[in-house]
């Protein structure tokens, strides 16, 4: 009996110590992480719509539909929306900038956990830049008959990015 209780107790103690340490560190880091994420999103909005200086969220039913971007003279220069779709191994979240005539200004991948070296290449500029100037309602990857060139060995990730942008755009188009 003693042989069972002693190891179990020690394991319990180690578990408790580990959880306490993790809880303390989580409490310390969680607000910083949230703040970093907000800053990274603000940065991403500036990347996809560089003309804009101020972004104002457009909210419907407590959800942010998209952001309107205004320049320093507070005239509307475009819109920013974010979208995501499950790629090969993770949700690929993309931020999209639109000009006022509803063409894509630029896009950037905000977060993804795709395969390093294959799907993770969706963050590279060579892939992202081909979206600029296109009509977001008409984008398809090459395998689906469109003109977005898929990443080598990562058609699924490329398709997730492309389809997420198109689907989300079609949903919010009438509200812009």
């Amino acid at each position: 009996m003693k042989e069972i209780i002693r190891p179990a107790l020690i394991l319990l103690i180690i578990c408790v110590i580990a959880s306490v340490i993790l809880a303390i560190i989580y409490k310390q880091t969680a607000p910083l992480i949230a703040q970093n994420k907000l800053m990274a999103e603000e940065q991403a909005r500036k990347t996809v719509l560089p003309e804009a200086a101020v972004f104002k969220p457009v909210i419907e039913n407590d959800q942010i539909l998209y952001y309107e971007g205004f320049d320093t003279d507070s005239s509307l220069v475009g819109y920013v929306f974010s979208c995501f779709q499950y790629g090969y191994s993770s949700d690929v979240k993309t931020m999209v900038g639109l000009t006022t005539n509803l063409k894509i200004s630029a896009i950037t991948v905000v977060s993804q956990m795709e395969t390093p070296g294959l799907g993770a290449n969706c963050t590279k500029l060579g892939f992202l830049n081909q979206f600029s100037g296109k009509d977001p309602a008409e984008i398809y990857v090459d395998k689906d008959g469109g003109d977005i060139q898929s990443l080598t060995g990562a058609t699924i990730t490329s398709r997730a990015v492309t389809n997420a942008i198109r689907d989300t755009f079609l949903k919010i188009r009438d509200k812009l």
Partner: protein
Amino acid sequence: MKAFQEFTKGIINENPVFVMALGLCPTLAVSTSVSNAIGMGAAATFVLLCSNIIISLIKNLIPNKVRIPCFILVIASFVTIVDMTMEAYVPPLHKSLGIFIPLIVVNCIILGRAEAFASKNGVFKSILDGLGMGVGFTLAIMVIALIREILGAGTILDMRILPASYKPMIAAILPPGAFITIGLLMGLLNIFQNKKKSKA
């Protein structure tokens, strides 16, 4: 001299990837490009070193029967701590290395060294062992990544080294390329080891 051997044994004679065939999952998955290999190698070496230190320190407190759950607990807590601290205080580093962190948990080299070495040796030796094994792992994954990146993309560290007319062998950066490369390298290493043995 003996201490130095604890370091060097991980690089060739007991190389975790080529000789002990440990940690193949991250090796196969992340060796698609040299920069990824360096990131994975550095992150894994760091965690390996720290887990070796902690486990060699608490080895006398852990009852034999529950040692494996204890090791896993220490490693998993450590990986999580590293992940959270990096994300909070050095977001750029977390952005480039963050993707490797969940993969470290499945790296059995770390558990393997905890069980086979750190739980039986002192702190100093465990540090050398962790460093040596980490360097051995990093070198192995870099060699595989070098071959795969040159063949599959014609580049090293994203710099083009083969002429633009070279048509990349895409299979090399896909999973089959990983298996074929690692198999051939293991075979080559075995030929050398066998020659050494027959001479001795």
